[in-house]
């Protein structure tokens, strides 16, 4: 019984960071630097300890009883519909809170070094804590409604943190763009909830799992795809990926925590949580898988030609999230979660490493003005190399095991097309990451010391400690799920099994085939690295990387951003700045600009012109419309219902 008592205290996990947010918002100025950072980090840390304790008690329970619902109070009640504000503790949410609080604590610690001297130091930590609280609520919620509360909370915090340096116009614009694009996804999420309520009468996860058998396959597909629209927005998949690269305007710890490790994985989590719908539908899964695979490949091609150190990582994140969706699409939920965890480690590491580089170079982000930093920042370089090997898929680092598992599962499902797309993406991943490592750390130095007045320097201990910790995790996280041992030591798969017990397991056709696929994956990674090293060993290539030069024809012709439709609804284009023309040196060509403008003009006059006349700005005309609407509604009731 004791272990269940502890699970009843699960509400402390989101409540501790929430408390931190409140305290820092109210007393932040008085607490000041660095105490405010310590308060936030300590509360995050205690949230992690709390998560770990509940993990211990959950694992003490027998496997089939590992699902504990803790209802705090009835949130709202209307007719037969009641929503409890409660938390669901099961292996899935437990995995999520462990890595969210763990990585979150490290990034909070790092931020104390990175944000040193910022005039809004305490405000930053208040937002970070608020974000952590929302994210934990999202993953712990016992129903779609509580999850949605967290879902909106993280969107808000993402907005606040992306445009944290709002004095810079580009940051303000990027925050707005992230927020607006996410709204599109939320629209799908809301519609899915309405449909669920209409058909099932409940939004609790337990109720859904029982009721899903009664709904028709078409309805299940509709719900699944609508939820997927939400996931696409949050996890920056095509075509809603446009906000993530711009979100790099935020401080680097924000990019690491929100736009690499935690928030953007919420979409994958949502699909895993709603897996009964995806299982009940015959076609939703393949849509998810192909959108994921397409995004994985597409984002990797864009990452090849980015020169901003953080934008490379941003597109890389989009690409890796694509792999996760590929996995959930073929029904390999455990593999997706596995990759989510390892990705959280190595991508947070890479982002924090790039932050350390930016910090050490005095806010320089252009890789064309870096190089040779290994000598000046040994710890950053060493840890970055670990992250690079992990994402490139080199044995024995974490990324190899998780990415290989996703590709192998796709193969065993008979989805050879998905496997090929994923494998090509993996080659590109290894290539662009090698390019980054060489441009930043190894090739001859190209930075201008006079520009910032001092040599590049290694970062303080608050920043290097998280780097080292994450590097260790990126190196060994593969141990969570080891294939090819007898019996396989797939701890994570077994741990998650109670959550996905209704899902057919994908089994390897044969042991040797699995081994062969892994070897191929490894060879692909090594090829990418060797290729990248051969091209970028001496720094910039004569082709596309020199400032002012256009990339060679094949690079320009690669899908890149060109695949994107230029005709985009107005809020995404004009109000939120430069969306359409993202590929460097392309958007500035007059011909492109003119085409953009002409088409946007036509779209606006066709679509918005009629509606905008309704918004006259006259208060009395709005009042008149309200009156007309009320009268119409009343008339409807009187005539049709016979009031």
């Amino acid at each position: 019984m004791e272990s269940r008592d502890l699970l009843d205290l699960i509400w402390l996990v989101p409540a501790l960071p929430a408390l931190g947010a409140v305290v820092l918002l109210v007393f932040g100025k008085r607490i000041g630097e660095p105490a405010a950072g310590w308060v936030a980090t300590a509360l995050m840390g205690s949230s992690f300890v709390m998560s770990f304790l509940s993990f211990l008690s959950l694992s003490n329970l027998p496997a089939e009883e590992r699902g504990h619902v803790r209802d705090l109070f009835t949130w709202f009640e209307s007719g037969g519909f009641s929503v409890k504000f409660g938390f669901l503790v099961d292996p899935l949410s437990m995995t999520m809170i462990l890595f969210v609080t763990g990585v979150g604590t490290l990034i909070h610690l790092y931020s104390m070094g990175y944000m040193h001297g910022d005039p809004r130091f305490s405000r930053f930590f208040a937002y970070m804590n608020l974000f952590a609280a929302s994210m934990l609520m999202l993953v712990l919620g016992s129903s779609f409604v509580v999850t949605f509360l967290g879902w909106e909370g993280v969107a808000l915090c993402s907005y606040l943190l992306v445009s944290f340096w709002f004095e810079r116009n580009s940051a303000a614009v990027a925050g707005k763009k992230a927020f607006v694009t996410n709204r599109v996804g939320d629209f799908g999420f809301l519609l899915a909830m309405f449909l669920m309520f209409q058909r099932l009468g409940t939004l609790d996860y337990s109720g859904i799992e029982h009721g899903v058998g009664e709904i028709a396959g078409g309805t299940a597909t509709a719900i699944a795809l609508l939820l997927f629209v939400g996931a696409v927005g949050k996890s920056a998949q095509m075509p809603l990926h446009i906000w993530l690269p711009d979100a790099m305007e935020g401080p680097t710890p924000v990019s690491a925590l929100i736009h690499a490790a935690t928030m953007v994985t919420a979409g994958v989590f949502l699909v895993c949580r709603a897996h009964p719908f995806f299982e009940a539908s015959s076609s939703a899964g393949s849509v998810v898988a192909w959108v994921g695979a397409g995004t994985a490949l597409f984002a990797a091609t864009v990452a090849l030609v980015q020169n901003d150190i953080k934008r490379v990582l941003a597109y890389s994140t989009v690409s890796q999230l694509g792999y996760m969706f590929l996995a959930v699409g073929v029904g390999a939920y455990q593999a997706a979660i596995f990759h989510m965890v390892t990705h959280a480690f190595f991508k947070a590491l890479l982002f924090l490493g790039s932050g350390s580089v930016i910090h050490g170079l005095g806010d320089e982000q252009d890789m064309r003005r870096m190089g040779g930093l290994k000598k000046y920042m040994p710890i950053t370089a060493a840890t970055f190399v670990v992250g690079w090997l992990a994402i490139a898929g080199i044995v024995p680092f974490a990324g190899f095991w998780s990415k290989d598992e996703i590709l192998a599962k796709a193969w065993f499902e008979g989805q050879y097309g998905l496997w090929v797309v994923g494998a090509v993406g993996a080659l590109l991943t290894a290539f662009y990451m090698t390019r980054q490592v060489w441009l930043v750390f190894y090739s001859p130095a190209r930075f201008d010391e006079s520009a910032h007045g001092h040599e590049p320097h290694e970062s303080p201990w608050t920043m290097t400690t998280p780097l080292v910790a994450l590097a260790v995790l990126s190196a060994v996280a593969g141990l969570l799920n080891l294939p090819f041992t007898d019996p396989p030591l797939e701890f994570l798969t077994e741990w998650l099994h109670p959550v996905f017990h209704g899902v057919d397991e994908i089994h390897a056709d044969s042991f040797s085939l699995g081994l062969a696929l892994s070897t191929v994956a490894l060879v692909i990674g090594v090829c990418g690295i060797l290729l990248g090293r051969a091209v970028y060993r001496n720094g910039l290539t004569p082709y596309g990387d020199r400032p002012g030069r256009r990339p060679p024809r094949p690079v320009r012709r690669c899908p890149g951003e060109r695949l994107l439709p230029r005709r985009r609804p107005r809020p995404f284009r004009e109000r939120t700045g430069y969306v359409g023309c993202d590929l460097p040196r392309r958007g500035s060509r007059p011909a492109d600009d003119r085409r953009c403008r002409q088409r946007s003009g036509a779209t606006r006059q066709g679509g918005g012109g009629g509606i905008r006349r309704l918004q006259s700005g006259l208060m009395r005309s709005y009042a008149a419309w309200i009156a007309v609407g009320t009268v119409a509604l009343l008339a409807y009731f009187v005539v049709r219902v016979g009031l």
Partner: protein
Amino acid sequence: MEITPAYYLTLAALLFTIGAVGLLVRRNTLVMFMCVELMLNAVNLTFVSFARALDDIGGQVIVFFTLVVAAAEVAVGLAIIVAIFRRRQGVTADDVNLLKG
């Protein structure tokens, strides 16, 4: 003559209509504001008369909620009107039309 609930309801409907029409035809923000108050109180009257007619305390309770919300609304609304007046030396509703499509 017995005063039935119908009298109160008719009065409330009349007051509400006066308020609504006033809101639509007047251009002075302060007057429009008073029209909104008139509409709110017309609804309050409806609540009270139904509470009496149906012998249900619920209607009277709702009135208190309305009063509280209306008080909050007055505070915000008057503040806005004062802010507008300081800026443009007038409170004509139709002049305040910057937010349009």
